[in-house]
């Protein structure tokens, strides 16, 4: 080992140590602690703290509120992400042909994405106001969007799609910009029409970035909390209560730290399982190392 190599090894450790320490103490350690918490009955206000093993998980297996929350989470994730991807690709394709005003277009597009989700919740709460909301005004109806069990989840999904479609659109648009004009030129020379160009050139080239967007968006949708907590609070009648909202209410409203942590662990396992599944799929396509 030369002096330089030894110095580099030392420098490497010194450079990485603070970040490793931060991640270990504020991510890994809480990650292990939450597992321990989930095996306990912890109700701080009554001074209760005892080991109960997997009781919480056994309870969740037959808890209708849990299964309802799981269903809401999956419906919210599936429908939101599907709509975001379709709309995002459409917007990216529209932007691809944009010549003037790109900066303005991106500003208008990214605005919805950049706002705090609590602001989004407040915007939509007002848009959905039964008598004075813009949505009912435009529809000429007086629907109670957030109070009707049949409408609350669609209303929530719409707000989420509004907020996150721009992210998908931006990623796809960035990919489209890197396609060489010669590729389209060649297609045109070969006599390919608009539709053929789209289905046999543009969409296949978008596929890898779409899979990445799909992964990011699915994980974020499964973990989403702010929007539903502030917009609907999980109501009416639990129709918008996701696993995250159920976990939060158990943790900090009924103050069952152990039970709430168990739901948190389930969410963690769900997210990791989805991430692992995607990565396996990506690897099969030869897209990830």
């Amino acid at each position: 080992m030369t002096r330089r190599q030894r110095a580099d090894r030392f420098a490497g450790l010194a450079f990485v140590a603070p970040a490793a320490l931060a991640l270990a103490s504020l991510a890994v350690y809480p990650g292990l602690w939450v597992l321990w918490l989930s095996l306990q009955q912890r109700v701080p206000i009554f001074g209760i703290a005892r080991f109960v093993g997997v009781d919480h998980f056994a309870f969740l297996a037959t808890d209708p509120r849990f299964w309802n929350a799981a269903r809401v989470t999956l419906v919210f994730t599936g429908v939101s992400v599907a709509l975001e991807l379709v709309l995002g690709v459409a917007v990216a394709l529209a932007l691809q042909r944009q010549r003037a005003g790109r900066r303005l277009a991106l500003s208008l597009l990214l605005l919805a994405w950049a706002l705090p989700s609590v602001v989004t919740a407040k915007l939509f709460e007002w848009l959905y106001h039964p008598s004075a909301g813009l949505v009912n005004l435009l529809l000429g109806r007086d629907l109670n969007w957030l109070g009707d069990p049949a409408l609350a989840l669609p209303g929530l999904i719409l707000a989420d799609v509004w907020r996150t479609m721009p992210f998908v659109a931006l990623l796809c648009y960035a990919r489209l910009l890197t396609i060489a004009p010669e590729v389209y030129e060649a297609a045109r020379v070969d006599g390919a029409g608009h539709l053929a160009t789209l289905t046999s050139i543009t969409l296949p080239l978008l596929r890898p970035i779409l899979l990445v967007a799909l992964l990011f968006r699915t994980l974020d949708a499964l973990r989403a909390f702010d929007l539903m907590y502030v917009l609907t609070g999980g109501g009416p009648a639990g129709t918008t209560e996701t696993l995250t909202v159920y976990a939060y209410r158990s943790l900090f409203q009924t103050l069952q730290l152990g039970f709430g942590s168990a739901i948190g662990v389930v969410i963690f396992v769900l997210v990791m399982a989805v991430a692992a599944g995607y990565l396996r799929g990506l690897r099969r396509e030869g897209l990830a190392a």
Partner: protein
Amino acid sequence: MRTRLRAWDVAVLLVLAAWATPFFWQVRTSFTPDSELLATSRVLPARPTLIHYQAVVERSVMPRALGNSLGVATLTTLLALAVGLPAAYGIARLPVPGKRLLLLAVIASTAFPQITTVSPLYLLMRALGLRDTWTALVLANTSFALPLLIWLLAGFIRDIPVELEEAAFLDGAGRLGALRRVVLPIVAPGVASAALLTFLASWNEFLFAYTFTATEASRTVPVALALFPGVFEVPWGDIAAASILASLPPIVIVVGLQRWLVRGLVAGALKE
């Protein structure tokens, strides 16, 4: 051909403006007097007013919350950069023992759900006596911002040809000298992108702030907005004004610093 393109440009801009309508509607609401709020019959208010902004600035916790958010987001960004930039350089360039494990931890923690770690972090903050302080939020936000920041910066640093640093070594520079004189100037736009994303994430963060804060001493903007008080009825106009104020930094970033924002967002996705 030229005119057709122009028509397309205008059409796309109109569609995107329509997409942004929920925000513009909130802007309209924030300037609309209460008497007109519940009986909307026109696109713009008949008698626009600043009364809601006045109420928010003079009689709500929003000014305090704006200060808290600005402080927490700025400190989070600085701390995350101070810790993350050397780590990114180490991962990109230096023979760090256990590098693969660290990278794995970085990637895995980007997928960490906040709701999973909020309970242990709450107990940790309580045990450290940090509840209702900026410190708790800065620490929690930094830990959540670090993985993406390290990932982004390591990618940007890898894009720099090693030869540039080696030339500096030949000139007698050490690691730190090369980092400061060669790497930092080149990677500066990337650092700006990563800093913007970190600031924005911290500004928008709700779950930790909602859980770790208890009073207006540390409540951030999203928390203050979520808890915005109404006495007898919901003060829609005041809430609108407060949400516009809460949106100002994101708007500055999207409109004024768009190039860096887009660069960071795209790099984060394309490099993974």
